């Protein structure tokens, strides 16, 4: 039997069913659809009521936006691959920095941040060693505007089916390319996760993969977890089960906004927990970082300085502690060593009620462009997803060979 004949049989089986049960749906009984014979109000009354409602709506909306920032992460992270790419790159970047810090025996508040000020340090100065990790990570994303440049393709590595490439530039204009490889499978009763979460039982899709940064391979385990109507994307980037960064993209119960929740674990100890909200504002990416536990605290709103034309970041911060509250601005410039060509971050911290600016310097890791010589395939958005020997009775569908992710 031809496959077309099977398709026809399926069609003829189900379509009468759809017609029959669809006719039973009566939304009028649910007071949603206006009944055809409803006596409508005069249109000018409706228009007046609508205008009034709109005024109230926009007044409320304006308050909401002021309070929370525009909810545009839907645009920035339009696809699940965007979310996975963001999680993989950001968590691995934090993992790399944590591992480097450990390898060089730097203490959490030690040699990474140098105070240059003569004036007393600010409260935020105590947070910079950890904040610096995050700013290094966030810089990888700030050059993006309304969406991330993420492409999904078939993997050239035989052990993996898929490859996601994230491309951008850092604030110096240097290209950044990350490639992560993975397999994805449906979760079954026999699935054994490397890391178990409280709601692992609700995972529907399991992702296993790898990402290589600076020659070091980091392993990835991701899950898509269905919780009611919400789909949660969790991902571990790990060296081993005691050294990892765990991130979940889910709704923050505090304000109902989708955020990335990070947990940085080293030697089995949680170093810090944070949450990051990604937005766009004036066609530029904005990240809101908040530390919630561990060796750092405060809220930080990070933007690319000067409308994206400058090599600096602007941070508005707010720290509330048991004995000290501090708000202010930080400007982070990228400075280059004339001799070595290495770059560092120069922090200028301006507390709102402070006595003056405070200067710091901190490490800036070089951006990673793992595939500088291998870009020719990464813009390839369309490819044939079929198997070469599997075109028998191919469905007549123009879209089938045009695999676009």
């Amino acid at each position, binding site marked *: 039997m031809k496959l077309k004949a099977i398709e026809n049989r399926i*069609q003829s089986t189900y379509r009468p069913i759809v017609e029959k049960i669809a006719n039973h749906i009566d939304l009028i009984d649910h007071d949603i659809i206006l009944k055809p014979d409803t006596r409508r109000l005069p249109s000018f009354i409706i228009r007046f009521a609508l205008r009034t409602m709109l005024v109230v709506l926009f007044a409320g909306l304006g308050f909401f936006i002021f309070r929370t920032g525009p909810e545009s992460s839907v645009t920035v992270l339009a696809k699940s691959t965007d979310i996975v790419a963001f999680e993989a790159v950001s968590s691995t970047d934090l993992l790399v920095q944590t591992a480097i810090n450990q390898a060089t025996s730097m203490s959490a508040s030690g040699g990474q941040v140098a105070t240059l000020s003569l004036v007393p340090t600010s409260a935020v100065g105590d947070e910079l060693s950890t904040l610096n990790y995050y700013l290094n990570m966030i810089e990888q994303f700030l050059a993006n505007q309304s969406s991330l440049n993420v492409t999904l393709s078939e993997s050239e590595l035989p052990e993996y089916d898929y490859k996601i490439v994230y491309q951008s530039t850092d604030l110096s204009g240097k290209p950044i390319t990350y490639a992560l490889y993975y397999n994805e499978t449906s979760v079954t009763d026999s699935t054994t996760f490397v890391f178990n979460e409280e709601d692992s039982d609700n995972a529907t899709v399991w992702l296993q993969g790898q990402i290589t940064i600076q020659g070091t391979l980091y392993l990835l385990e991701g899950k898509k977890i269905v919780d009611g109507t919400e789909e949660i994307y969790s991902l571990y980037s790990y060296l081993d089960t005691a050294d990892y960064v765990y991130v979940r993209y889910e709704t923050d119960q505090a304000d109902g906004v989708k955020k990335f929740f990070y947990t940085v674990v080293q030697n089995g100890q949680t170093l810090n927990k944070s949450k990051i909200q990604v937005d766009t504002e004036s066609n530029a990416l904005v990240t809101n970082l908040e530390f919630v536990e561990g060796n750092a605290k405060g809220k930080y709103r990070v933007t690319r300085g000067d409308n994206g034309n400058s090599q600096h970041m602007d941070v508005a911060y707010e720290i509330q502690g048991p004995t000290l509250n501090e708000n202010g601005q930080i400007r982070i410039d990228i400075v280059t060593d004339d001799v070595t060509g290495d770059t560092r971050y120069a922090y200028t911290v301006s507390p709102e009620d402070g006595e003056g600016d405070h200067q710091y310097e901190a490490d800036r890791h070089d951006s990673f462009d793992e595939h500088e010589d291998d870009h020719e395939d990464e813009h390839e958005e369309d490819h044939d997803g079929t198997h070469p020997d599997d075109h028998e009775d191919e469905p007549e569908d123009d879209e089938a060979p045009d695999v676009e992710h």
Partner: protein
Amino acid sequence: MPKRFDDLIARLADHDNETFEIIHTETKKMVFAIIYPLVGDINLTEDLMQDTYIKMLRSLESFDRRRPFGPWLAQIAKNIAYDHLRHAKREQQAVEAAWHIQMPKPDTYIDIDRLIRSLDKDKQAVVLMRIVGEMSFKDIASTLDRPLGTIYSLYKNALKELRHIIGKEDNS
């Protein structure tokens, strides 16, 4: 997948019944094809389809009109079905397939529904979304959040599996 409904959405937001009928007619096969393979029960599918459209109408204000309507509705349908399954699981109510509506029985009748449901869930979903829901492979991939190559493979393998089973039943 249903076409874009840009010009209709504004009217739908005013709860215009005729507009809803148009959209409902255009999308009901897709909504059925998403829900039925997940819940495996026609009566339940009917209820959840209704829930889907109710939720769609109540959520319309939050719909970003720059985006296509079909995938948004598909997502609602999928979430409604998953939500139901979670509640059913929580209450330990096994969702048992029931086939209460009389099936059309042509001369060469083979219980296609039974065969479809003998496929694994992913294949059921892809086959029904494609053939009954008339969705493109790309939209199916988006709805199921799977790579397009996977969807295409699932579809082809499902049809081949069905062909194999039907061939055996025809000969018996």
